[in-house]
């Protein structure tokens, strides 16, 4: 029950999904859609584990007064407020009225979006320092990396004059030809690797998802 049943479930459900993929029939499509809803629903229930984990870790930090425990209060309060407004003060569980709640919308527009956009834009500075280290032309391949990155970065530079048009065309060619060849090789490698791993999971060779006991 603890180990054999999960292995049997993985094998039978994956076999069912593989078989239904090759049967273009209405019943097969219905099974596909129905089971996709299953994993969606199970996934959402699993998300509750993540939220509970966040609450538990934050509560433990506050209780034991660990370093920076005050910020955990910010996390918990903001989590609670977002849920409170999202359910429109717990008045609308089964209608989408909560999504129109003014505070919910404002929290999203004026807090979540600016912070997330600023965090991503902050990476511009760190990526620049990473570029300095990565772009030292100490070999031919490193020079190729440097030159192609520089061309792509300079392609929209308005100060390049007539050279700019050539730069843009070169960047477009780099992105659409050598970059495409590299990407395709990587995607094929990832595809073959993921199918091999999926087969190992299906056949019970890879079973780390079961845990230890």
């Amino acid at each position, binding site marked *: 029950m603890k180990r054999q049943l999960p292995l049997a479930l993985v094998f039978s459900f994956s076999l069912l999904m593989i078989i239904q993929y090759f049967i273009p029939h209405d019943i097969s499509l219905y099974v596909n859609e129905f089971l996709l809803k299953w*994993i969606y629903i199970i996934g959402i229930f699993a998300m509750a584990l993540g939220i509970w984990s966040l609450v538990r870790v934050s509560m433990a930090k506050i209780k034991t007064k660990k370093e920076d425990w005050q910020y955990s209060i910010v996390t918990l309060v903001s989590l609670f407020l977002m849920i409170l407004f999202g359910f429109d003060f717990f008045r609308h569980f089964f209608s989408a009225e909560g999504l129109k709640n003014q505070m919910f919308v404002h929290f999203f527009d004026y807090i979540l979006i600016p912070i997330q956009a600023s965090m991503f834009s902050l990476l511009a500075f760190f990526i620049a320092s990473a570029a300095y280290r990565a772009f030292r032309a100490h070999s031919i391949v490193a020079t190729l990396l440097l030159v192609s990155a520089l061309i792509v970065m300079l392609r929209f530079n308005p100060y390049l004059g007539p050279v700019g048009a050539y730069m843009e065309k070169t960047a477009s060619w780099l992105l659409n030809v050598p970059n495409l060849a590299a990407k395709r090789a990587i995607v094929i490698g990832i595809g073959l690797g993921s199918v091999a791993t999926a087969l190992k999971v299906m056949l019970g060779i890879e079973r780390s998802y079961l845990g230890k006991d």
Partner: protein
Amino acid sequence: MESMTMETYLWTTLGAFLSLCIFSFLYKDNPFYKFAEHLVAGLAAGYFVIILWHNGLKPNLFDYVGDGNFYLLWLDSSHPWYMVPAFLGALMWTRFSRKWSWVSRWPMAIYIGIGVGLSIPLGMRNAVNMQLFSTMRPMAWDNFLGNGYLDPTSGFSHLLIFVGMLAALFYFFFSKEHKGVFNGVAKFGIGILMIGFGATFGFTVMARISLFIQRIQKLGEWSSISWTDGAFTAIWLIVCGSFIAVGIYEFIKYMRNRGQTKAAA
């Protein structure tokens, strides 16, 4: 500049303040940054709870079993079999118990089984077959050099994509020793990969830079709105003044520490 209500201005100020909090990380990790970081963690988690509830559970579960009786666990609804995934999802919560946590393996196994069953044919189709299909197209000999400077639709470009992809794949193929001709092929493959990585890197840098420009533009807009009204200006001064005050305090602290370190040395 269109007029703005005090409420909208305050919300915009909050957004600008939080953006400045995040940018303060460029100096070093500090309480402003930590506050914004923890705030976004809680808000993002709460946001996804709401979105997944309203856009996930409601249309895929509650809408099907909603005509049933709550006290009968919706088993008398017109679609009672939709309670099966809900029951399996609830079994995931047995992870809270040390004694019963092994039960959560069942829904996990079904989840993984369905995912694996989907990924095998789809992975082969999308990541392998379709990529090979798109690469191995008939050669356009009549348009080998293309029209104009570096034409991506030319026959030469198609040939380079095909040869480059094979060479890049060969670079990761270790069953044959990379010697002689094979070494040349592998080297050509790594060259193609490096050009690809460089182009991707440059593209990512530009995406981040454009995001940064957009944030600075937003801060500029907020700053210019602040001078349209006396009350707005006062709020602007408070926000910017607090950042400047903290900056001066940090600078003095840094200079003092530096003086003490020098004296100790």
